[in-house]
């Protein structure tokens, strides 16, 4: 990518340098007419031949580059300068200045660009001196908007406030802090404006309303070569090619610049065939509803291959609630998505096996997975607003899941009435009417209930709930937890509850798995783990939760290590109050510390 960008910069620079040094090149005069050699073929003196007036074509092409780039560069620079000034003033001073500087730009946008240029050319007459200011006005709004938006985001940031507090004047603040921040987008805008100006200049010149003859310009050359295209088609093709290639390079440079400035680089797509490389699951099918066996997930990142989930094993029985607890980035959600076969494209399973009712999922084909998803296994996602389709009614979104798993005969049939029934079951008042609502018309709590209705539509054996209460306030949270607990009791589902909140775990879970930096650090019955944690991280987590008797929560010092920069020994060692030298060199294994109880700590005995 960077090599491509460098190549493009060199190409554009090459065109620009050619344009600059044209007067110094040993070329024939581009405007000297030789009537005797009209439309002459290429010769030693005239490499590309002569045009209808006997002028040298190569010379006119190169001089044409000069005209194009001069007009484009000058108008873009002019627009850039005034755009920065207006954008800075409007964004920084606000009020009337803001209105005049920014809103007035909308008026320019009311006219189709070529039309505005034509109007002005009519009034002021053609020629480069008219063209440059007209094009500058056309590109002004783009620059003003970019700078204005940049100023608005930057002006409220801490370091700008700090500079103001230190007594820096507004001009100094603008030049020192804001300009460097908007430089990237402005550069992109500049390249877009220049590329577009080349197109407009050539178009207007082609019509005879841009550059005035006999100045060499690509647009003019194409225009006049049309008359002789039968005798000398090459005369037409040379300026067409020069113009198109110039614009092509400039566009490509724009794209490259935008990619460089925009942090959202294109997603990387892991190849699905990597799944085939997995070891076949040789273990006999175990008994529980869900069994995850030594699961490792890989993501290919710019920092190299990371493993956000490593060697994770757990089981969930029917009617049991298992909570997976951990901080953000501990790998909880990825685990849930891996079970569903819904990992994002960049991530893939490197090792391990996942069994649902004795059926291996990681090696199942997409059709099998599709029949299981929303059927035997279902998932509730964290943010109900973004997880529901904004343009479809709630009832239709529930019914869709029912229809997808219905046998071919009774498709569509009563899916809608079953959807209404599900809405009633999850406690939504007036479900007939609510089924016709769009997601944005519902409250957050109601959306999450609808999301649950979507998930339980086909009586799943396994329900994975990924932080289903995080986006909700406390009272709604309690109602949702109650609803999930009731559903599990009534339907005998296995429930996997992913959360970072210990009070929620205490309320709902039979067993708990504590994850830290992609690994299970402790697991056991919820009551045991809460009463007597066997890993310093669990203990620290418990201390960091708000207590019922009003004691102050205690933070955990330090931060979770980055997945591409894990410590050599125990991942928690750098933050651990109990660490000994061994912790920093030996990676502790997960050891049994009691019946159905495991810990990944070298010193678990001392902690007990």
């Amino acid at each position, binding site marked *: 990518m960077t090599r491509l960008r460098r190549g493009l910069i060199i190409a554009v620079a090459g065109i620009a340098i050619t344009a600059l040094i044209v007067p110094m090149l040993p070329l024939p005069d581009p405007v000297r007419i030789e009537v005797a050699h009209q439309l002459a073929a290429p010769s030693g003196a005239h490499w590309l031949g002569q045009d209808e007036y006997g002028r040298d074509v190569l010379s006119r092409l190169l001089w044409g580059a000069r005209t194009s780039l001069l007009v484009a560069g000058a108008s873009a620079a002019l627009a850039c300068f005034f755009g920065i000034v207006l954008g800075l003033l409007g964004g920084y001073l606000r009020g009337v200045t803001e209105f005049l500087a920014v809103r007035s730009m*909308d*008026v320019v946008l*009311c*006219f*189709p*660009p*070529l*039309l505005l240029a*034509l*109007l002005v*050319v*009519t*009034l*002021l007459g053609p020629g480069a001196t008219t063209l440059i200011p007209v094009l500058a006005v056309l590109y002004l709004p783009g620059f003003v908007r970019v700078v204005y938006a940049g100023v608005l985001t930057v002006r409220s940031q801490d370091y700008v406030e700090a500079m103001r507090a230190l007594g820096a004047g507004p001009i100094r603040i603008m030049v020192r802090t804001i300009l460097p921040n908007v430089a990237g987008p402005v550069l992109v805008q500049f390249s877009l404006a220049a590329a577009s100006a080349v197109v407009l200049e*050539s*178009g207007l010149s*082609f*019509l005879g*309303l841009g550059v005035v003859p006999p100045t060499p310009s690509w*647009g003019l050359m*194409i225009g006049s070569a*049309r008359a002789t*295209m039968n005798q000398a*088609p090459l005369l*037409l093709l040379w300026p*067409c090619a020069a113009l*198109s*290639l110039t*614009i*092509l390079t400039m*566009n*490509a440079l724009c794209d490259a610049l935008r990619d460089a400035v925009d942090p959202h680089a*294109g*997603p990387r*797509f892991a190849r699905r065939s990597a799944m085939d490389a997995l070891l076949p699951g040789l273990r006999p099918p175990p008994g529980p509803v869900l069994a995850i066996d030594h699961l490792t997930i890989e993501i290919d990142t710019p920092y190299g291959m990371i493993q956000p989930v490593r060697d994770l094993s757990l089981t969930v029985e029917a009617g049991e609630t298992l909570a997976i607890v951990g901080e953000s980035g501990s790998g909880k959600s990825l685990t849930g998505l891996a079970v569903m076969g*819904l990992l*994002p494209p960049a991530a893939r399973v490197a090792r391990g096996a996942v069994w649902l009712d004795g059926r291996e999922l990681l090696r199942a084909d997409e059709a099998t997975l*599709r*029949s*299981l*998803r*929303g*059927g035997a296994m*279902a*998932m509730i*996602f964290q943010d109900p607003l*973004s*997880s*529901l*389709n*904004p*343009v479809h009614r709630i009832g239709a*979104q529930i019914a*869709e*899941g029912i229809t*997808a*798993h219905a046998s071919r005969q009774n498709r569509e049939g009563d899916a809608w009435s079953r959807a209404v029934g599900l809405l009633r079951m999850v406690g939504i008042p007036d479900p007939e009417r609510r089924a016709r609502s*769009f997601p*944005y018309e519902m409250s957050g709590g109601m959306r999450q209930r609808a999301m649950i209705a979507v998930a339980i*539509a086909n009586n799943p054996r396994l329900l994975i709930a990924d932080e289903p209460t995080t986006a909700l306030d406390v009272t709604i949270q309690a109602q949702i937890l109650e609803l999930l607990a009731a559903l599990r009791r009534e339907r005998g589902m296995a429930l996997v509850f992913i959360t970072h909140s210990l009070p929620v775990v205490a309320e709902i879970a039979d067993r708990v798995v504590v994850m830290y930096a992609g690994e299970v650090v402790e697991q056991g019955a919820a009551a045991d783990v809460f009463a007597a944690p066997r890993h310093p991280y669990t203990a620290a987590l418990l201390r960091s939760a708000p207590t019922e008797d009003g004691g102050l929560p205690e933070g955990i010092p330090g931060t979770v290590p980055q997945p591409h920069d894990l410590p050599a020994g125990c991942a928690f060692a750098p933050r651990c109050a109990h660490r000994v030298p061994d912790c920093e060199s030996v990676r502790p294994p997960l050891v049994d510390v009691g019946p159905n109880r495991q810990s990944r700590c070298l010193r678990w005995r001392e902690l007990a």
Partner: protein
Amino acid sequence: MIWFLRRIGTAILLIWVVASIVFLAIRLVPGDPAELLLSQGGVAPDPATVAELREQLGLDRPLPVQYVERFRLMAQGDLGRSLQDNAPIAGEIARRLPRTLELILAAALFAVVVGIPTGVLAANRPGGWLDRWALLQSSVGLAVPVFVIGTVLVLVFAQTLRWVPAGGYVPLARDPGRHLLLLAMPSLAIGIGLAATVFRMTRASMLDVTQRDFVRTARAKGVGPRRILVRHVLRNALMPVVTVLALHMGTLLGGTVLVEYVFNYPGLSGLLVEAVNARDYPAVEGVVLVISVLFVLLNLLVDLIYAALDPRVRHA
């Protein structure tokens, strides 16, 4: 409903602003239009003739009077008379506007038929051969200016292969076959660049929507890939494409100038170029005004379509 009324109010306000700017631009520019008009050829015009023309154009009256008079006539659909042949400008515009609109619609149709399916297929396998091939083609389509495409089309299909006439216009009623044949090349010239834009937008939008949470939800429900594509991805992904396409069509209202010129197509933009070259101020003013108003109306239409497609917009 309130949203709807407010949006229409904004559009009316914009039309008024645009009409005023066009009016002022013609009258406040340095140099007297009447004098400029008569002084072609470098000879100083006769003051009496200038005064006569000024009177004929109404330029001798005070600006506010002219302004009120102009808007009064405009409300009646009167845009003045051409200086070239003294014909009513509104009539000439009414005759030529449908031809330009037909051209734009034909180009948009081509762009949609080519751009959207290619974009959807390319986004289905990003990095695949179709994706890379289409991306390359669209770079070329975006880079070559319309008048270059048009000129090359004429050179190849009209001059060299002699499959089609080089240009012109025949009304649909007189000869439907020839009408469509003559429409094909100019709309292709515009449509190629437009198709490249539509392709890029569709592809980017598809890739974006495919990553959204609600698509994951649909997959979690066990919905099949085709239904996910049609019901969940396409509907959401095509909204920005519709917007961009409509905005581009608005830009084309003034942007068909070059293609109409290349193919000798008697559309609205051609009228504008003729008027500009003849310094026919009332005609220029009329055409610019009509196009700008259409542009504003089209933007309004886009917003309304958007509201129909996305229930959230109506309540924002």
